[in-house]
């Protein structure tokens, strides 16, 4: 028998700090696999967020820097403009990208920087213990919406992909999920495509991964993946939102 699937080289053999069943670990592996497949590990620079993925520099086996909360697109812009031959990507959660860093996100997309953005949407602020995020669903109970999110009080969940698709600077936008094995494989293809776009100089690529946060949602990992399928995907439909790379 021969080994057909194992840890990608771009992912260090280091214990992840994420809770059991967290979707972050799956996305880390998909990113690492895409970088291995494209053979770009020696020229990749990641920008980690503030949030659960704050320790990404411990996990990825390539250069990684850390940006203040919400600012990875600004830091990535600087790195990419001074090192245009490098492959630069940001890895951000919903609190980071859709709340605190909304301005940086929108202007980076609007400038059409040739970077890749990996956005993990798990409908809450995970690291701080499960408070409401802009992506929290209506009626969803979080630490700061104990009776469920009410649109009259907290507004509606933001569909970041559709928001960015309206900007002329964005070239490739896709929403994927890691709620089951077939979707994980599709997510892997989308992430690889987003990196391929940057290698070919096609411009700003954005991948939203609808992920699960079992511990902060108060669910088991299985219940959490089921909730993603049954509830989150109704609000955040999967698929290619925009593709101007052809």
């Amino acid at each position, binding site marked *: 028998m021969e080994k057909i699937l194992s*840890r990608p080289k771009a992912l260090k053999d280091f214990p992840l700090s994420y809770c059991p*069943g967290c979707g972050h670990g799956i996305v880390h592996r998909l990113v690492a696999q895409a970088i291995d497949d494209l053979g770009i590990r020696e020229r990749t620079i990641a920008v980690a967020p503030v949030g659960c993925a704050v320790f990404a520099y411990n996990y990825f086996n390539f250069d990684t820097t850390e940006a203040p909360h919400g600012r990875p697109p600004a830091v990535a812009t600087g790195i990419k403009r001074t090192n245009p031959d490098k492959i630069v990507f940001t890895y951000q959660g919903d609190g980071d990208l859709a709340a605190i860093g909304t301005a940086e996100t929108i202007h980076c997309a609007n400038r059409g920087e040739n970077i890749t953005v990996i956005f993990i949407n798990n409908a809450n602020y995970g690291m701080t213990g499960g408070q409401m995020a802009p992506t929290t669903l209506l009626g969803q109970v979080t630490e700061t919406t104990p009776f469920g999110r009410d649109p009259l009080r907290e507004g509606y969940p933001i569909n970041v992909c559709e928001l960015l698709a309206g900007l002329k600077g964005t070239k490739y936008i896709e929403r994927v999920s890691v709620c089951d094995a077939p979707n994980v494989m599709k997510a892997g293809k989308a992430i690889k495509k987003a990196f391929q776009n940057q290698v070919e100089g096609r411009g700003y690529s954005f991948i939203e991964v609808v992920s699960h946060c079992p511990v902060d949602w108060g669910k088991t990992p299985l219940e959490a*993946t089921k909730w993603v399928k049954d509830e989150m995907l109704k609000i955040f439909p999967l698929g290619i939102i925009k593709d101007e790379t052809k």
Partner: protein
Amino acid sequence: MAKITVNQERCKGCGLCVNACPKKCIGFSSEINKIGYHYAVLKNEEACVGCGSCYQMCPDTCIEVYR
């Protein structure tokens, strides 16, 4: 002939691989590992087809697939 191996010290016992297995050949250990979880084990090696669904779902990349 196919099989998987699980990194017993890293597995957090989340069960996503157990649920993802189409042949239902993965289960949990009776012992706990150093970090306090019942880790995943291949219970029925004969049924494993090496499809890699468990590998795809494992958040901690604990699983290696052989075929």
